[in-house]
């Protein structure tokens, strides 16, 4: 595999604790990959390894075939937008943006022109003499982006770029960033713990846990075909419960669940689960509510959360397992006795994993 930016089996330990564990990733030129994971999953460390602030204990980072693993950040020509922007508070907007250009030896007219062009790119033309303190959060973020892009780096790194904006601004800024980065066409690695952010910004999303790459794929792939129970649980809404695989069925497998037996499609291309206990991960929309009866798992509705076109009902099976089911908002009332069935929709939404996986 040849990519423009390649991470080859990166390992980083802090005081003996693995922060990044044999992480390999390859990005095509101009591709944007989002590193998504809970805190402590190693995504920020990976970004810092890419920037050169940390040196890996093993593994390599290659850009366009050049090994930059041990190249100092100063010489690496990677642009970075920091979580809190790290704008120089004593310099104005123009001086901030020109900072990286000066390192390239640019002076005078060319310098100001390039800085102006970078500001134009983020829609802040004419803001050169503003002080950082006079800018709104969104504007600061764009200045940080302009500053990182001005020296035309080889790779752009974004560390939680939206976490400091208020929620109303986030969605709009997300569109703007995506559009801008695609226009510039720069290879980008983004760190985030927000699934929405990763899904909108990343051409592909890398899900990390405990320093390991759990799955790399497009947002659709991650949702419809999670590689394991962790990814399935981390991406989107789902309930998980232990079931027993009875044996193969014409189109999938037959499982015993809460006193009922279901025949389910266990996900395309997934290795068959041998008969015995298994972990079932199920999306709310893959289940439906029925009157209690044959083939349905008996349960009691304990709560309801309204989400617009449908509602998410919280149900507890008679065995005490919790399930989340999507249904029309007024399907049932809390306290009602119901049966739960897989929705008629064929395939997808229900995944079986071996139990030993966490």
């Amino acid at each position: 595999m040849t990519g423009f930016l390649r991470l080859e089996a990166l390992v980083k330990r802090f005081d003996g604790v693995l922060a990044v564990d044999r992480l390999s990733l390859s990005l095509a030129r101009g591709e944007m990959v989002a590193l998504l994971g809970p805190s402590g999953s190693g995504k920020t460390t990976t970004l810092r390894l890419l920037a050169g602030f940390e040196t890996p204990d093993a593994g390599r980072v290659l850009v366009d075939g050049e090994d930059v693993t041990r190249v100092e950040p100063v010489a690496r020509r990677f642009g970075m937008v920091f979580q809190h922007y790290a704008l120089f508070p004593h310099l104005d907007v123009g001086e901030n943006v020109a900072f990286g250009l000066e390192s390239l030896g640019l002076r005078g007219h060319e310098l100001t022109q390039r800085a102006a062009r970078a500001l134009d790119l983020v829609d802040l033309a004419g803001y050169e003499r503003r002080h950082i303190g006079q800018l709104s959060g969104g504007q600061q973020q764009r200045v940080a982006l302009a500053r990182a892009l001005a020296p035309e780096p080889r790779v752009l790194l974004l560390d939680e770029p939206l976490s400091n904006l208020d929620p109303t601004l986030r969605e709009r800024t997300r569109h703007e960033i995506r559009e801008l980065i695609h226009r510039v066409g720069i290879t980008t690695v983004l760190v985030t713990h927000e699934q929405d952010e990763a899904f909108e910004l990343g051409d592909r999303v890398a899900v990390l846990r405990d320093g390991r790459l759990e799955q790399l794929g497009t947002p659709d792939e991650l949702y419809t075909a999670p590689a394991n129970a962790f990814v399935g649980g981390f991406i989107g809404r789902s309930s998980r419960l232990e079931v027993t695989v009875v044996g193969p069925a014409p189109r999938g497998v037959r499982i015993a669940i809460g006193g009922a037996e279901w025949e389910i499609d266990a996900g395309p291309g997934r290795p068959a689960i041998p008969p015995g206990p298994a972990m079932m991960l199920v999306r709310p929309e893959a289940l439906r509510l029925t009157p209690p009866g044959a083939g349905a798992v008996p349960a009691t509705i304990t709560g309801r959360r309204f989400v617009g076109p449908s509602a998410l009902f919280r149900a507890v099976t008679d065995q005490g397992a919790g399930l989340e089911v999507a249904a029309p908002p007024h399907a049932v009332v809390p306290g009602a006795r119901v049966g739960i069935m897989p929705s008629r929709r064929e395939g997808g939404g229900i995944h079986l994993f071996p139990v030993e996986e966490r």
Partner: protein
Amino acid sequence: MRGEQRRQIVGAGILVLLLWLVVYPLLLVLVEGLHGPRGWTLEFVRLFLHRPTEWRALWGSLWISLVSVVLAAVVGIPLALLFGRYDLPGGRVLSGLVALPAVLPPLVGVLAFLFLYGESGFVSLLVQRLLGLEEPPWRLQGAGAILLVHAYSMYVYFYLFTRAALGSLDASLLEAASSLGAGRWRRLRQVVLPHLYPALGGAALLTFMTSLASFSAPYIFGGGFRVMTTQIVATRLNGENELAMVETISLTLVALLALWLLRGGRAPEASGGRKGSGPTRVPVRRPGMRLLLAVVAWGLAAFLLLPHLTLLLVSFVPLGTWTTEPLPPAYTLRNYLALVTDPVRSRPLLNSLWLASAATAAAVGIALLASLLGVGRRVRGARLVEGLLALPWAVPGTVFAIAIATAFSVRAPWAGRFILVGTIWILPLAYLVRNLPITSRAILAGVRALDPSLDEAAATLGAGRWRTLRRVTLPLLRPAVLAGASLAFVTAFGDFVTSVMLYTYDTRPISMEILSSLRQSDVGVAAAYGVVLMLVSAAVFAVGAERGGGG
């Protein structure tokens, strides 16, 4: 990496430098106190223990310091509560004035008190005349005089610390307490006071240490009453050098013990990133109360300003003209002109300027280097360096003066000792050591407050170590450096306690010239020096606070 190695080497260099300047002289004092002509001996310790005068001096130091803490607290805390709680007429100006004694260098404060309440002082004469007395109504001497000066100059610690702590009190805590049914007194007792305790502890520690180290007031007003600082100087003048060393050790031990006992106290944080706003001030509505409070407050301000004003007044009095009149009969600018035109008179001014500047520059350099190397990096001995930088704060100035005089009066290059006593280098060196704690505390705080990602941002933008330092780090540290430097400069500029033991005629600083003018009864010139000292201190403070505090 080579950069890392270089960092370790520079760090080790600073450590050695600090050990040599801060610890080594103190150890030499210990050695000299325990070492006689025939080897190691406890003879001088025994001498110390058997002399009642020594015990009296040590006890004097202790109780003066304790009573100073009480007096300063009694004046400072109510003032802070008053100005912090009520919106008084002219409160803004007043609360600034109340901090004024802080800009009075100790010797100048003593001088002003002498002119005010001394035997032929302004107030004394006034009272004598009003009551028709033959003699001055009181003598400004002994413990009472010392305590008066201490209370006047040190209540500011309690005032400022309490004000800061009150300002950081989250008003919603008080609101929560009232909503839970706590009345005014219960709120004060259970919410406000517990919040103030750390600040009060910090102020108590600062006051105690300052009075323990106080030299100017006991030296001028003490008369027969001795505290340890003045006792050390007297013993040294008597030629009992080893005994002076033992005295120095005893004072150091008391200081370190006090620091250890009171270590829980800490200065309030200037402003936390905490949410919630400080309690708003209550406007005083009742006109009668308002008038009363205003009169009390402004009367107090006048009392606080009196020393400064007296100094100013006396500085315009021609030599020998003001004897028994309540106000000077004649005024002149000659005292000030002499400072500029007479080379003998202008010399101390220039001396103090360059001595203080050199010491401050060196202290800033060392503090910057140590802070930048140590913070956030795993440099071996970073904590030790921090401790060494702070140590001179805990040790009275007299002790350091003795220690440095001891260490640098012998030529033994292989032992790191050179003859600097009697040269122009001894005073800057002594000032430098004394300035290290204040400078490094300010600069260290500044470095700690820097966002480390700024350095990283500069690196990703291709700026190397030096360009980052020049364009990012140093400009951002400017406020902290200015704050630290201004404090250090003011302390060195007005220094008396180390100068009195180490100065040479060629490097005599302002404080020594004030003392000698006073001895020649040339009070006008002494006051003029005092005014210059006060104004320069205030100006430097203002610059430091404006550039430093504003950002």
